[in-house]
């Protein structure tokens, strides 16, 4: 006493790596342009 430590087998861990590949599309070109672009469009 005390008893010796023993290794215990367990199921290996699996990560959900596919989840990381689910990504939002880039919205850069869909957003509001800056004000300068708007003014220059008005006044050509």
């Amino acid at each position, binding site marked *: 006493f005390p008893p010796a430590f023993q290794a215990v087998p367990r199921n290996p861990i*699996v990560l*959900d790596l*596919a989840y*990381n590949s689910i990504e939002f*599309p880039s*919205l850069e070109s*869909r*957003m*509001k342009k800056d004000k300068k672009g708007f003014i220059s469009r008005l006044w050509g």
Partner: protein
Amino acid sequence: AAAAAAPAVAIEDLFTSLNRHIQRSEFDLAVKVSDQVLSIAPGDEDAIRCKLVALIKNDSIDDALSAIQEFSKKSSIDFSFFKAYCLYRQNKLDEALESLKGQEGNSATMLLESQILFRLGKMDACVDVYQKLQKSKIDSLEINFVAGLVSAGRASEVQGTMDSL
């Protein structure tokens, strides 16, 4: 011309706020704004994708699946990968594998395929996919690779695999 320009501006504004919600991981709000875009522009692919990804990231897998079903009726976008992932999350493994069939073998589909095979207990097939993915330099791939090898009764190959990664 003024009438045609108005919704374009509104959509730009909506995408600006949608982008902000995504940056802040406010996925329920991202779903709401995607719906607002879709009410103006029903077939907008970016809005559709944003809605689906936001639902998945929000763990609303049931809602994501019904949205996929809805969009499939009126859009030609291929939702097979999203569908397969949602089915995998619901443990409908055969259906998930079915939905992946005919998809190009990119790293995302291969990762999902190997995870499905693991759950199905098809360990050798699972390890085969990880072997093909080895060159792709995917973060933490070794964790699943080792799990597959050990579960396949091929623990003796673990050391060699780790050295080669």
